């Protein structure tokens, strides 16, 4: 009689295989933290292992469907994890959602708002503006710091401007112009038409920066002039860690000079706010509620004790992010005299300060904004003179202008977060809000 006996080795292999599969499914179902996810080179590259499996998540050697041996076209590939219906990452760039790695007690991730907004929806409570008095009440100098908090919405709202037209409905990025790209030459040149994609700004392989931003952006397009040396290099540094490295952020416009300004009670609730904390290129001071402890090696600008009159070296992140944005939007980078000094450019003639004191991200989000533009704010033409894109509600014929320019607050509330042109609001420490 022939007895059929299972081979112990095969059974063991099957059991191990099921365990591995189960573990893989478990791990695969777990969203990956945005602040240090699978793109980080130290995780996926040979820094930790020379047999990383991460390559196969995105690439195929012989059956690739997308350029660069990608399994599919770039945007679709990114959205397979970062899309509205994807579960592979904590960052939903379509819906403008930042999920936390914690859950709500019922096994569901907690949805917050993505700081950069989303490309289809965003959760910016753009109608809820506030400011903490006016810092220029004596007409000559900054009297104190202030905070204008822009909270988040519980649900997404359709964007009115975005860097990419991810849902393919057109409109929001129909012009596809890298506004201000190129040097000031005196020629009329609003900027070249470019083709943007996720990788224009992000390095999917990771580079040690939690935003995985390319050091210098370079979208595709004829006539685009890459700026390799915008003046200030964007440094890579260590990945932030610790409490607050992940979680819901408010869209807070901060113009604090010091970390204490940001964290102090009178600056409003800042837990979870994005500012210069947790940025990979800054070291992270510690704040215990009353005092700050600076880690060794912190550079000037990282520390609360600023040097009066040395504002340009004060906030490292600010100048870095302004420099980074201006690697595309070259002519937007402007010093404090830009509003009164003719640049010589026929379009970008007088320019709001965009540098270390007022960084781009103070007013703008990166992905998309749902801020509503009405009246005069809706009418503002594009730099090339083109009329803003509009959509008409087929039911009410109400016209929505897709003209929010990635601003965080409705209309020109972003301006008012800092400016009181009436000069009549005295500084008294109070918060003015809707």
């Amino acid at each position: 009689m022939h007895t059929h006996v299972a081979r112990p080795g095969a059974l063991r292999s099957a059991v191990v295989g099921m365990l591995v599969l189960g573990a893989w499914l478990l791990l695969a179902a777990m969203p990956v933290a945005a602040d240090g996810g699978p793109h980080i080179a130290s995780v996926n590259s040979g820094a930790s292992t020379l047999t990383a499996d991460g390559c196969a998540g995105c690439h195929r050697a012989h059956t690739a469907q997308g350029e660069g041996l990608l399994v599919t076209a770039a945007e679709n590939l990114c959205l397979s994890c970062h899309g509205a219906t994807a579960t592979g990452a904590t960052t939903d760039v379509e819906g403008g959602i930042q999920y936390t790695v914690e859950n709500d007690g019922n096994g569901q991730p907690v949805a917050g708002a993505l700081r950069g907004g989303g490309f289809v929806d965003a959760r910016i409570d753009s109608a809820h503006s506030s400011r903490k008095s006016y810092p220029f009440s004596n007409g000559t100098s900054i009297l104190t710091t202030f905070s204008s908090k822009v909270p988040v919405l519980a649900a997404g709202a359709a964007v009115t401007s975005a860097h990419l037209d991810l849902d393919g409905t057109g409109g929001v990025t129909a012009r596809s112009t890298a506004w201000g790209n190129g040097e000031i030459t005196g020629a009329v040149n609003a900027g070249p038409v470019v083709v943007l994609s996720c990788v224009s700004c992000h390095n999917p392989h990771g580079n040690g920066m939690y935003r995985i931003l390319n050091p210098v952006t370079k979208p595709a397009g004829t006539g685009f002039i890459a700026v390799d040396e915008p003046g200030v290099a964007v440094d890579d540094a260590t990945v932030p860690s610790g409490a607050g490295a992940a979680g819901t952020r408010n869209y807070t416009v901060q113009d604090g000079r010091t970390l204490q300004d940001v964290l102090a009670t009178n600056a409003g609730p800042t837990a979870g706010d994005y500012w210069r904390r947790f940025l990979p290129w800054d070291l992270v001071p510690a704040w215990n509620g009353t005092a700050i402890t600076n880690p060794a090696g912190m550079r000037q600008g990282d520390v609360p004790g600023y040097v009066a009159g040395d504002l340009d070296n004060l906030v490292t992140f600010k100048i870095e992010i302004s420099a980074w944005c201006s690697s595309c939007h070259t002519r937007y980078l402007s010093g404090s005299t830009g509003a009164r000094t003719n640049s010589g450019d026929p379009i970008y003639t007088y320019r709001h300060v965009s540098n270390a004191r007022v960084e781009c991200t103070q007013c703008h989000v990166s992905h998309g904004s749902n801020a509503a533009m009405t009246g005069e704010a809706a009418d503002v033409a594009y730099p090339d003179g083109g009329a803003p894109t509009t959509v008409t509600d087929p039911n009410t014929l109400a016209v929505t202008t897709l003209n929010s320019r990635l601003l965080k607050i409705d209309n020109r509330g972003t301006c008012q977060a800092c400016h009181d042109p009436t000069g009549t609001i005295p500084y008294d420490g109070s918060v003015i809000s809707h």
Partner: protein
Amino acid sequence: MSIDIQRRAGPLFGAVLVVVGMTLAIGPVVPSAAALDPTPSPDSSASAPSPSLAPPAAPDPTLPAADPVVEPSPVASPDFTPGPAATPAPTADPLTPTPDPSPSPVPSPGATLTPVAAADGVTIEHFWIDAENRAGDVPNPGELDDATLGLQRFTVYRLRFQVVNGGDSPVEVTPKLLAGEGAFPASWMAVPEVDPVDGLPFYAASDKGSTWDVRHSTIPANRLRLDAASDTSATSTDGLASAGENPAPAVSLPAHSFTEIQFAVRATIYAKYETAYAFRLGLTGTSVLGRVDVGVEMGPEPAPLSDGPAATGKPLEEPTAFRLDAGFAITATLASATVLPDSGFALAAGTFATPHALLNTLTSDACAACHGTHTAQGPTLNGKASPIATVCFSCHNGTGANANVAAQLSSATPNDPSTDSWYQHPATATNTNHISDHDAQEFAGITNRHAECADCHQPHLSDATKTMVTPQGWTASGSIAGASGIAVANGGANTIPEFTWQKTSTLEYQLCFKCHSGYTGLTGWNTTSPSRSQLDKAVELNPANLSYHPVEAAGKNTSTQLDASLAGPSSLRLWSGLSTGSVIRCANCHAASTVVAPAADASLDNHASANRGILVRPYRDRVLRTASQNFTVGDFGLCFACHSTSPFLDFSGSVRPDTNFGGHGLHVVALAGNADTGATNSIDRDGDGLGNALCAECHFNQHGSAFPANSTALEGAQQPATGLVNFAPNVRPFNGTISFVRNANGTSTCTLRCHGKDHNGLSN
């Protein structure tokens, strides 16, 4: 077969509301379509044409198909002035004015009702008029075939029409909107596209207000407001909404279909209040001709936003008591002029008092109206290049605000610096001498005067707040709120006060002192032509002086005679209620010459005037009268805006109760032909004077007594005097003395020589 249904507007909405009506020639009524509410009028018939309507004209195949509209040229008739009634004649052009062959059953006004000329079965059956709010939304759509609102200037309205093709063939129609003045306009004009046109009451606007964003969008068939039409077999088809396009793109109408077509129009400053207008939707096509007229009426003029008395226009009267010549040319101009509403802005009702104020919201859209962030073309991030007037005139050019400053400046006489003749503040001149942000250094101690808009206005704070009188002067009104100025701490008579720059003027004259006081650099006495001197008004108006016009404080002359002069008759009186205790404004004398009968606290502007010195009324002060020229009050309208003319009509030389100098009449009337040998007629030339005197010969510097002219120093110096008496350079000393002394008995004594006559202590 068609039927005729008389439709009339809903209830009249009072005098201020629009009354709209239509008479339509439509296809069979749709009984089941409740929304259509095709309630026929009692005289309607389902089987016979209405006797009140002309039968639809058959299309004339010889007519141009593309655009058979006959309309006057905008250039030839820009003001919609109704012309003669059109000659009734059969016509195949449905867009051509056609007098209604029978009176409309709906009483005027507002009952407009031109029948639709149906061709190829195309009719226009219903309409709506929606008013947009400032955000570009329509919170309360208009009712069917009704207009429950009085049109307001600067508001965008959406005129929407239901169009039906009851024919058996598809057609393509091109919609075009026309307008005319009156319930039954005698002439029609295409509503201009995109941009307002001077003189025209409407333009086809972007429905976002001021943006010239020409566009159109489809109104999907399933989003039409009505789901049925008189042609019960008709089905819905896509319509069209036009914003800024006129004519709109062609619309295809399948056989037996209906749709809706919409135009956005905006009423301009030229739309007359409480005046009837009519819109005409015309349809043209290969063989389709049709139209319908909708009567509307502008609402009343908005009430002033402040609680001050509304200014009313009042023609000035010609002087009749004493008129020696015909030189009174100002009457015609003044009689037709009116004072602008003090509110300054006529925005959509229920919005805000001024688009400049940002205090009420932290998400204002107003910033974007004037500023750019990264693409600004002017300093301080202004959206347009310097001067700042280019930004201001985006609205203040007759299209967005009641105050048409652009027209004031462009129509005024150009300044002539070579003769110090100023008719306007040079707001449109680009200045390179802005030192900083309107701070103390901009005008301090240097000849750096300029007057761009922002030098006198703080646009973020301007509002309709009225000026108020205080013992120290009139307060800064809302129109100059926030503008910087110069406060003065006066010392003794004829001395230079201590100047203090203020970020915000609290008193009206403080703004003027930025440029017209010694705080800045003035050229001072013009030794060649003293009448062109730039003197320090702060010194002249110092209340410590012997006499002055009471700008900083009430005057020193508290005599009953002066009270009587200020209250006495003057056919040219502009300011009433003045007394010796009054404090006056700079703007009482320096304001636009078009002002008529303003209130004391009226929002006066002094951007420009027809009179040199930006004077509110004429004032002859440089060229003396010839030997034969007679006195005319019109030459001194400025003086008689406050003072009685009576003393000047009495040349007896007697003491009068309404003047402190009984010789006024004598001097202005009875000196004809008195002259020194070789005299001419320049007030600046020693010994000149050929005829009757000018006010300025004895009141050379009217602001105050601090700077008496000294035409010939070797002959003797004038001293400051009471009664604002300081003699002009043409008046000569007598034996080295030139003086005026008021005597205790009410008479005066002069020592001087003028017009060839010695005054050796001469008293009246």
